[in-house]
């Protein structure tokens, strides 16, 4: 068996590993093993690549890898669980950037005059999609890290500017396709970066997770394109796997939010709907209360349901929420958490956060399990959630969230909202439940308020 065959066999083993990894990650029981199988597959692929005949610059490769590991491992290990989504965004972005660089470097090294048209097409695709993924992920990171506003960013003539950049990219791509010009390819690279930025700017914070999933899929496709350019099956298979599964995952995620993908990507949603949403509610009053009163209310309740949302994640209040639950449980109050599938910043994010705070698993109830029990709850404590308990999803057919499954907090005897302000949730629409006579609001940072509640329950 020649060395080339042996290396190809290693690649075959590697992509079996990748497929098994994706299969494993789809089931809660085998998810962690799946990830390890994927990592082993990757190790085999990288090891086999070192054995390639004629691979030069070994020292440079090792130095570059060492730098990557030195930055990547601490960054990934030290990041707080609440900051995971933006970490995924940034690691996705660098992957897209790498794919674009691989494509363009290979293009430079080839004799472009003799290049077949489809080869140039592959390079173009890799550079374009990789760059969009890179700059798009960077903006998504900035939005989630709150380096910039999470609200959709709109500006005058946005559609026109987007269209002009889009057409320019297309025209330039066609020109490069015909002329195989390297300088023009660089211009295209920069324009593609711009395209990634303006593509992501109008997308609101709540939709960014879906966007990251889409960009993840883009990076996969860029990697596959690089694979075509380099004649590498392992890149084609792994990239395509991620590209295809990523698109499906993106659709599933937007479906869990009750939204369609084009709606998420192109509607600059929040800004428009906020206007119509708040118009009808001028001058309506809500009932507020003090942590002391609510503490007493909960201390003498039989059943309290905590409905955590994005606000709890932002305030990093999961540990205090657990303290409150413990305090209540000690007093004989039955407590559980009702978890909406898209609570937090990403689907499943809330489960991760609460697990980190060592909330016992049997106290976490998925929406379908929690909803039948809501009617028997004395208090529904909504911590930093809004859209996921908004009855408009059921009652108002015209509402942007109509059809999204919700947690029926409105079925509980008392509803307590912990909110920072009256600002609507991410969907940018008003919540009728806030004005319900049985609803009480506690304004302030979720963590502070929860701490006061813990003290109040203890004193009751």
């Amino acid at each position, binding site marked *: 068996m020649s060395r080339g065959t042996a290396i190809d066999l290693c690649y075959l083993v590697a992509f079996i590993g990748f497929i098994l990894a994706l299969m494993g*990650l789809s089931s809660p029981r085998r998810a962690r093993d799946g990830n390890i199988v994927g990592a082993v597959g990757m190790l085999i692929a990288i090891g086999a690549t070192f054995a390639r005949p004629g691979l030069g610059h070994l020292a440079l490769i090792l130095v570059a890898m060492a730098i990557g590991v030195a930055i990547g491992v601490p960054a990934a290990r030290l990041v707080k669980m609440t900051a995971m989504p933006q970490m995924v965004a940034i690691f996705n972005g660098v992957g897209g950037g790498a794919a674009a660089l691989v494509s363009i470097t290979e293009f430079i090294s080839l004799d472009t005059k003799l290049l077949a048209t489809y080869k140039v097409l592959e390079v173009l695709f890799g550079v374009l999609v990789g760059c969009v993924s890179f700059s798009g992920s960077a903006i998504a990171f900035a939005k989630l890290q709150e380096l910039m506003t999470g609200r959709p960013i709109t500006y005058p003539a946005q559609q026109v500017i987007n269209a002009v950049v889009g057409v320019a990219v297309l025209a330039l791509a066609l020109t490069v396709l015909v002329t195989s010009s390297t300088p023009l390819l660089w211009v295209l690279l920069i324009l593609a970066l711009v395209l990634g930025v303006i593509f992501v700017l109008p997308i609101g914070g709540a939709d960014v997770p879906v966007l990251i999933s889409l960009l993840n899929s883009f990076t996969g496709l860029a990697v596959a394109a690089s694979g075509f350019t380099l004649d590498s099956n392992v890149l084609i298979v792994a*990239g395509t796997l991620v590209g295809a599964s990523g698109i499906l995952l993106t659709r599933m995620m937007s479906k869990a939010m009750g939204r369609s993908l084009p709606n998420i990507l192109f509607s600059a949603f929040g800004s428009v709907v906020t206007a119509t949403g708040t118009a009808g509610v001028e001058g309506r009053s809500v009932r507020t209360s003090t942590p002391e009163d609510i503490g007493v209310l909960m201390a003498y309740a039989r059943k309290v349901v905590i409905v955590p949302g994005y606000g709890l994640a932002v305030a990093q209040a999961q540990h205090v929420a657990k303290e409150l639950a413990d305090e209540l449980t000690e007093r004989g109050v039955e407590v559980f958490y009702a978890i909406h599938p898209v609570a937090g910043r990403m689907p*499943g994010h809330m489960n991760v956060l609460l697990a980190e705070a060592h909330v016992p698993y049997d106290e976490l109830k998925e929406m379908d399990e929690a909803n039948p029990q809501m009617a028997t709850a004395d208090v529904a404590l909504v911590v930093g959630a809004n859209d996921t308990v908004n009855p408009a999803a059921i009652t108002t057919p015209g509402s942007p969230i109509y059809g999204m499954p919700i947690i029926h907090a409105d079925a509980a005897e008392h509803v307590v909202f912990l909110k920072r302000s009256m600002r609507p949730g991410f969907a940018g629409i008003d919540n009728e439940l806030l004005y319900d006579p049985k609803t009480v609001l506690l304004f302030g940072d979720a963590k502070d308020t929860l701490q006061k509640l813990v003290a109040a329950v203890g004193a009751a």
Partner: protein
Amino acid sequence: MTNGILEYLTVFVLAVFVGFEVISKVPSILHTPLMSGSNAIHGVILVGAMVVLGSAHTGAEEALGFVAVVLATLNVVGGFVVTDRMLEMFKAKPGEQRGGTAAASRGPSGDGAATTDTGDGAR
């Protein structure tokens, strides 16, 4: 050459179907880890980056290839470590029910050991 591209296209099309098939039944609580896990898998671009840097002839190619390897390594290492840390949290489930020893092992030290493990694997 024409045959080459057809072979690759065949592989591509089959991979599309496999990609759709493998995640068709994923529960929503695993959407985030699955996204992160597939994010790590496209880090395989590292193989491409190594090949490009390994066959670089000019200074420009070396520089581009070098940056590509750094970025791709970040993608691989970061992707697998982040995913493992997320799934570490999920592992609490069976531990909780079995009680005692399993629950004790999911402290901060268990987390650290696990991530180091994957870091080595990715290298």
